């Protein structure tokens, strides 16, 4: 494996019966990159991501994440990645602090370390006031931010974000991307799916998936040139319409 490539995917495929959700995709992600994984709903983004984070077995093909094989070393991968699902997946009936403590504990952090981390996270997000409120009572935008921070609690090498900004307002989205930049700046590789095309502009490189295949992969700038488009939205529409 090349040293600066933290994700390497080759011919990765997933079939559900006759249906091919992910069709032999090949790409790689460099260390410290913000990699945008774009596609329409049902294009196969989430399925592909689930294979990369080791909770879904590929039907064929190979993938290497953080130096480990997804087929045989899934548990090793899990130590080195963070994940935020598109469905909000913290416990509504636990407080912000308790959620952070729980996930920190599961990742094997010491109590002392968890305490440090949670104070830091809560401060960074400006959540001091609601630190002891039940997560279920918070607005969606806050929940997403907490979710993101929790996925970073064990300082993973790569963080996978599945449509992290679905259903939140533009201001919160903006703030969210600031958090993503900050993480990337600190050396975390960010792998993010989205269908907001304006967000694609924030990525270092993007791939666009159509019907289980990656149809385009480059920097946003080059893609716009290649497709002779005004913005990423235009690129996407041109691709999707064939």
């Amino acid at each position, binding site marked *: 494996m090349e040293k600066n490539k933290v994700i390497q995917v080759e011919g990765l495929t997933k079939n559900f019966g006759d249906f091919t959700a992910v069709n032999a995709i090949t790409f790689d992600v460099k260390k410290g990159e913000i990699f945008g994984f774009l596609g329409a709903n049902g294009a196969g983004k989430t399925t592909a991501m689930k294979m990369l984070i080791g909770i879904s077995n590929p039907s064929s093909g190979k993938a290497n994440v953080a130096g480990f094989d997804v087929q045989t070393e899934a548990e090793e991968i899990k130590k080195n990645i963070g994940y935020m699902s598109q469905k909000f997946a913290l416990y509504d009936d636990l407080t912000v602090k308790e959620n952070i403590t729980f*996930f920190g504990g599961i990742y094997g952090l010491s109590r002392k370390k968890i305490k440090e981390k949670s104070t830091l996270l809560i401060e960074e997000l400006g959540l001091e006031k609601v630190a002891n409120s039940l997560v279920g009572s918070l607005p969606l935008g806050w929940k997403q931010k907490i979710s993101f921070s929790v996925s970073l609690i064990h300082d993973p090498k790569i963080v996978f974000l599945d449509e992290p900004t679905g259903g939140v307002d533009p201001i919160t989205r903006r703030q969210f991307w600031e958090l993503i930049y900050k993480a990337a700046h600190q050396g975390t590789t960010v792998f993010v799916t989205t269908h907001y095309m304006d967000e694609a502009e924030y990525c270092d490189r993007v791939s666009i998936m159509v019907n289980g295949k990656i149809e385009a992969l480059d920097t946003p700038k080059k893609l716009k040139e290649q497709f002779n488009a005004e913005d990423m939205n235009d690129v996407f529409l041109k691709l999707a319409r064939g």
Partner: protein
Amino acid sequence: MNTILFIIQKEFKQIFRNKGMLPIIFVMPLIQLIILSNAATFDVKNIKFGYVNHDHTSTSRALIEKFNASTYFNVLTNFPSEKLASQAMLNGEVDVVLEIPSYFERDFQKEKRSALGVTINAIDGAAAGIENVYVTQIIQSFNKDLKVNVSQYGQKQNQPIQITTIPSFWYNKTLNYKTFMVPGILVLLVTMITLFLSGMNIVREKEIGTLEQINVTPIKKSQFIIGKLFPFLVLGLAILSVGLLIAKLVFNVPMVGSLLLMYFYTSIYILVVLGIGLFISNYTDTQQQAMFIAWFFMVIFILMSGLFTPIESMPKWAQTITDFNPIKYFVEVLRMVMLKGSGFVDILPQLLKTLVFAIIMNGLAVWSYKKTN
């Protein structure tokens, strides 16, 4: 180890934070224990009794008086005809009808024997059997009274031989049914609560999406399952403790055996139940499905446990099935230790079998929990 502690902590918080469930977990079972233990009795009392008397003589009246005096027979109704009596039985107003024929006294004095009609509603066969025993006892004792009356004239020699049986009821001299049922119902409550809660647990996390979040962490499968087991084990033991307290204080059930042994066995037993629950939870997709399956097995386990009906009466094949029923062993052990004071060696066979179940079920629970699919 540390990881497990975090899961345990989280589970406890969630249990105690769910205000809607707390009363269902803690209060409902105990109320049921207090109320239902009174209901579960095979004693036959207050028998609805009626009679038709065609022989208005002192003998027949004496016989009816005898029934009247008995504590088992409650409502005495005098029916003018058989037809009305059987009508009343159809209506469910009366369960036993005594029919005294005309010439009852005359036959008796002339032929030294006379017949008596007894009609019993036998839909509940067991109760009918007992009612029959009571009727027979009263008539026998009436016979004896008559014998005494006539024995002045009787011949001394050629007396019939007799064997006297002296019944002796151990461990429960007064045949108090509650002593028997309270431990049994306690078993049910502990089992139901732990099975249903554990059965819903993992599948609930599946439904709300948090399970996926846990699956992307490096947690070991066994750590996860152990972390899930422990809080429910504590919960089960807590219910057992309060239940035992109620048994002692409210029902005055004797506790002859070692409490330590009871808790030790119960812990292993609860692990079996939780293993089953978590296995169901892993295997199903929705809470509804999980509960349905849990309920199905629960009903069969209860009915095949010897809790209400004796296992020895079952046919051989059915007894073989009960060997695989963990509730059966728990019912046996709790009754043995509580009421008879059986020791470790006495319950060793049950203990070992339960242990084997615990290992198999929890093995299955760990195995069926798939982090990757």
